């Protein structure tokens, strides 16, 4: 239903095809026609044991070091002149593979990497993947999932987003939460992709845990700047998370039992070497454990009731290799958070009549993402991916009150229901191509469309009270429908031995009602090799964002509203330049030093005085528009492999906002303007049975607005009206944040399975980090017996030392 309407009604699609694909096709023909005696080796690189595709593996000619890397589906294509070659394949954690090929024609070779290296013996001897100084892309970090799984975490729940918070340029929001603030951007400016599908609310339990189950994740990539043209739609970062595909050869499982939640992941072949599945589930169970206690408490009070909270995640993926050239994937994520409270009480109205009253309340929010993907190797040099997705994020809060009498009397009958719902629903389709005409060019192009349905807050109120007329009313904002469409082309190409560039353009538009916002976003990255180990890099990226998150809290409340660009609310824009150095030291340590400057326009903020409980006005009336800018320097030293692995990151940054309606039009520090941010992550393998990990973070305190003095209002009189003077907005700094987490994993191999006990502590030295501040009024009597009110500024700290223990297993 959706596609025909899309094709019939939208002239812009034709414009996109004509405007983008025809020049691209012409360009490809030109490149492809050069060097007619070249031949291509292509295929997939996979883990020989599990059949899992390896993303970013290096495939290169050993003699000339000309090579390529696999794309996100493990596909590679290497075009070389006819001749005899020794081709090497390498990937972190695997033994390098080499084979000789006499290239006389186009060849397809599926490369199966040997078993994972024993880290104890592992030593890097050659380029394992494309080294950091060789990559065109800057401001990009791959975080090994194995490291994430070792990092100590709050209550033992390993978390992708919290691991990303430990990287330079990424600020966390409040204590314990998984919000990300990248290079001065807001939490809505991160494009969080799970298998290519945007995830709108990536947190459980008000942000204390993210929705990503590390057992089901294959790779995590963070991009903070110099965005390649195939990404778009957000200003500040791309977090591309790819799920595992499932073992094609053997049945395996992993699981864990922790303080908060338990997890189980199963994977295996459906048809050996042809089709596989992976399914992974996680659920908290404190509600189940506490249920008898809570019920008992209610009973003690002579009532009947239950209350609790839980969240769960369910990830699943099936892939099927139709032929060597065709493959189809179906992946899905389903997750929910649910608070519930039900309470019933019966009391006697008279000797003959009893009244029963019930109160129910619930708070529920969750995501669904699904993706159906079809890959085809069209020819040796051209790879196609067609994706259709559906995603949904919705938030629902409701309350019911009912009462009835026994024997029944309509005068005592009451039935009231209140329900508030908001959300965002997306259908999308996209078509992507990878074209690799030679080792000197890697071209990507594609187009797509997302059909959004925004539901920015609808309230339903039903009431039937006694003998009065029933009320049935619905009010609030009406749904908004929009198309977000895009097309892109980029080429990652080499000029000589030292220069490599990525030039691209991302065209995007957003059509809602009579508005049709469009933008052409140029993207450019370049590196110049100063020597074999050191390169200088620079990038420029222009981004536009059409959807916005209205939030007045820092902890990712589910009440945050996703809202579209409208007549009043313009799309947000950013421009970012970055420059830096990349260096690989002793082939083990990657060091990068980057400086960046980013400007952002049309940002939104709540107006002064506005809040979640501000009623009677639409969301558009509660916001104001302004600009922001951020600049700084980031130092990152990473060691990915070996017995000792981890990283050290340091960020020095300044982030400002300026809104005409805020702070009297003067610029002010962003809440997460953090001058210094340091993170140190170390994982240390003692032996095969024991590994140890520790993280230490330090960050300048958040900038907040606090009243500093009070003075009389003009109407100060009998009522004593006073005005609080806040000084400049966000002029008060909370105390600096720092924390040490430690953990140890004890492994033991059994005949058919392996178990791990993990022990650790979050905030090991129990630092009282600020979560929020508030003023407390204390009422006392002075020596004369007069009432005296004193005020105190109170800092609430959430987590002291929090130990954890987790038992996990795999087979």
């Amino acid at each position, binding site marked *: 239903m959706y596609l025909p309407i899309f094709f019939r009604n939208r002239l812009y699609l034709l414009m996109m095809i004509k405007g983008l694909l025809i020049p691209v096709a012409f360009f490809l023909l030109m490149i492809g026609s050069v060097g007619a005696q070249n031949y291509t080796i292509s295929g997939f690189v996979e883990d020989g044991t599990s059949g899992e595709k390896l993303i970013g593996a290096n495939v290169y000619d050993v003699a000339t070091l000309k090579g390529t890397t696999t794309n996100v589906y493990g596909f590679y294509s290497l075009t070389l002149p006819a001749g005899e070659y020794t081709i090497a394949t390498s990937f972190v954690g695997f033994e390098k593979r080499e084979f000789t090929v006499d290239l006389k024609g186009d060849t397809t070779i599926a490369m199966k990497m040997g078993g994972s290296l024993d880290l104890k013996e592992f030593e890097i001897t050659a380029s394992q993947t494309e080294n950091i100084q060789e990559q065109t892309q800057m401001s990009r970090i791959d975080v090994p999932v194995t490291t994430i799984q070792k990092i100590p975490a709050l209550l033992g729940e390993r978390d992708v987003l919290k691991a990303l918070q430990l990287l330079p340029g990424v600020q966390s929001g409040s204590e314990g939460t998984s919000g990300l603030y990248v290079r001065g951007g807001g939490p809505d400016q991160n494009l969080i992709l799970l298998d290519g599908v945007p995830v709108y609310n990536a947190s459980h*339990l008000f942000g204390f845990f993210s929705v990503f189950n590390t057992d089901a994740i294959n790779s995590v990539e963070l991009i903070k700047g110099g965005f390649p043209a195939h990404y778009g739609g957000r200003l500040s970062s791309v977090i591309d998370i790819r799920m595992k595909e499932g073992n094609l050869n053997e049945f395996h499982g992993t699981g864990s039992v922790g303080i908060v939640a338990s997890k189980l992941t199963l994977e295996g072949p459906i048809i050996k070497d042809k089709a596989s599945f992976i399914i992974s589930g996680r659920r908290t169970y*404190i*509600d189940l454990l*506490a249920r008898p206690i809570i019920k008992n408490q209610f009973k003690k009070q002579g009532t009947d009731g239950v*209350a609790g*909270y839980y969240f769960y995640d369910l990830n699943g993926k099936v892939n099927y290799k139709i032929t060597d050239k065709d493959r189809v994937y179906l992946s899905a994520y389903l997750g929910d958070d649910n*608070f519930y*409270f039900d309470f019933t009480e019966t009391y006697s109205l008279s000797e003959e009549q009893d009244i029963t009253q019930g109160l129910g309340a619930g708070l529920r929010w969750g995501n669904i993402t699904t993706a159906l993907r079809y890959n085809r190797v069209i020819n040796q040099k051209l790879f196609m991916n067609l994706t259709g997705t559906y995603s949904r994020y919705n938030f629902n809060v409701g309350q019911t009150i009912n009462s009835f009498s026994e024997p029944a009397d309509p005068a005592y009958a009451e039935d009231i229901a209140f329900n508030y719902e908001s959300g965002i629903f997306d259908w999308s389709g996209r078509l992507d191509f990878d074209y690799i005409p030679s080792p000197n060019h890697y071209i990507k192009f594609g187009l797509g469309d997302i059909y959004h349905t925004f539901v920015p807050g609808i309230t339903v109120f039903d009431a039937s009270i006694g003998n009065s007329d029933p009320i049935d009313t619905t009010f609030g904002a009406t749904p908004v429908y929009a198309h977000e469409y895009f097309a892109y082309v980029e080429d990652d190409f080499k000029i000589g031995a030292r220069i490599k560039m990525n030039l691209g353009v991302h065209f995007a538009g957003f059509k809602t009602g009579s508005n049709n916002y469009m933008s052409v976003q140029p993207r450019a990255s370049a590196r110049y090799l100063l020597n074999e180990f050191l390169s200088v890099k620079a990038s420029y990226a222009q981004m536009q964002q059409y959807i916005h998150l209205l939030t*007045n*809290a820092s902890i990712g409340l589910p009440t945050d509203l996703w809202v579209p660009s409208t007549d009043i609310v313009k799309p947000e824009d950013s421009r970012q330049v970055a420059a830096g150095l990349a260096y690989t030291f002793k082939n083990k340590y990657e060091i990068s030093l980057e400086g960046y400057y980013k400007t952002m326009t049309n940002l939104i903020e*709540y*107006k*002064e*005085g506005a*809040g*979640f*409980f*501000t009623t009677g*006005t639409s969301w558009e*009336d*509660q916001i104001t528009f302004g600009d922001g800018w951020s600049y700084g320097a980031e130092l990152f030293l990473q060691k990915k492999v070996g017995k000792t692995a981890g990283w050290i990151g340091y960020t020095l940054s300044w982030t400002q906002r300026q809104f005409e309606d805020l702070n*009297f039009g003067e610029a002010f520090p962003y809440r997460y303007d953090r001058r210094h941010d340091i993170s140190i992550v170390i994982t240390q393998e003692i032996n095969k049975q024991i590994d140890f990990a520790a993280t230490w973070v330090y960050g300048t305190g958040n900038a907040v*607005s*606090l*009243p*500093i*003095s*009070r*003075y*009389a*209002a*003009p109407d*100060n*009189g*009998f009522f*004593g*009206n*006073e*005005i*609080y*003077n*806040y000084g400049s*907005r966000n002029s008060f700094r909370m*105390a600096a944040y720092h924390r040490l987490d430690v953990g140890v994993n004890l492994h033991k191999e059994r005949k058919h399975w392996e178990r791990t006990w993990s022990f650790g502590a979050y905030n090991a030295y129990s630092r*009282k980090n600020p*979560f929020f*501040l*508030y*003023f407390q009024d204390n009422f006392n009597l002075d020596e004369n017996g007069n009432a*005296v009110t*004193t*005020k*105190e*500024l*109170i*800092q*609430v*700290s*959430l987590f*002291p030392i929090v130990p954890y223990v987790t038992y996990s297993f795999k087979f």
Partner: protein
Amino acid sequence: MLLALFTISCETVVQIDLPETESLLTVNCLFQQDSAFFFTLSASKGILESGELEQLNDGQIKISASDGTEETISTTSFDSLTFREGYISTMKAKPGVTYTVTASRAGYESVTATAVIPEPQPVSSIDTTSVIIARERENHVLVSLKDPSGIANYYEVKMKLLLYYPVGTDSFPYVLDIPIYPVAADGVFGNSSDLLFSDELFDGQEYAVRVAYSPDWVEGDTAQIVEQLPSYLIAELRSVSEDYFKFQQSYNTFQFSAGDPFAQPVQVYNNVEGGYGIVAGYSIARDTIPFK
């Protein structure tokens, strides 16, 4: 509840200090044309300091007008209208004259403020109408004005009812404030629930600003009087200075959001250099029509 238990069990509370802030003079005066100035002078306190704000009745206020007149007020008097003690001038404020006010008191740095009263803009006409919006009847009042072009003008509209209470054979005039509110359809008010507006949308044009009042505002005996005796609707159009406009808007927002822990902080506009407060003026034009 479980979350609360979980959170409370982890919560630790620490008392922290704020840097000390200097106590500064606060001078306030909202004045209108042809009336005396009424100033209040007080001292600010740090947010953590306890006790009532101290009213300073032993200070000095000096008014210097651009027409050359000056007055220094060193004593306070009791104002029977506001039931407050303050510094009352003999000088009366005039539109178009710029007043520089200097307030001083031993132990404090002197503070200054500059203010001017805009020329009054007459009410061209008043009209009442009744409309049905979302199946509800709304009573509207249209107050027309002619806005001077080329300069930014700010207004505030108020509505009053003039009644003549019968006492024996006589009747006594009595003026009631009518609670009115902006009509959402009238763009000049924006989203604000204030009755303040600027001429941004109608600069230099004739404009009829629309406000609404609830039919239930008169009750009991008053309702009967309105029904039976002559009564009049008085539209009051205040031409307010930019300072007055900014202060009143921000102060209204400050008061509206007070007590909401989720509300964004509000910075109240202040035009007193070296201290706190507001010194701003307005002029009033009125028109009256019979009310039914």
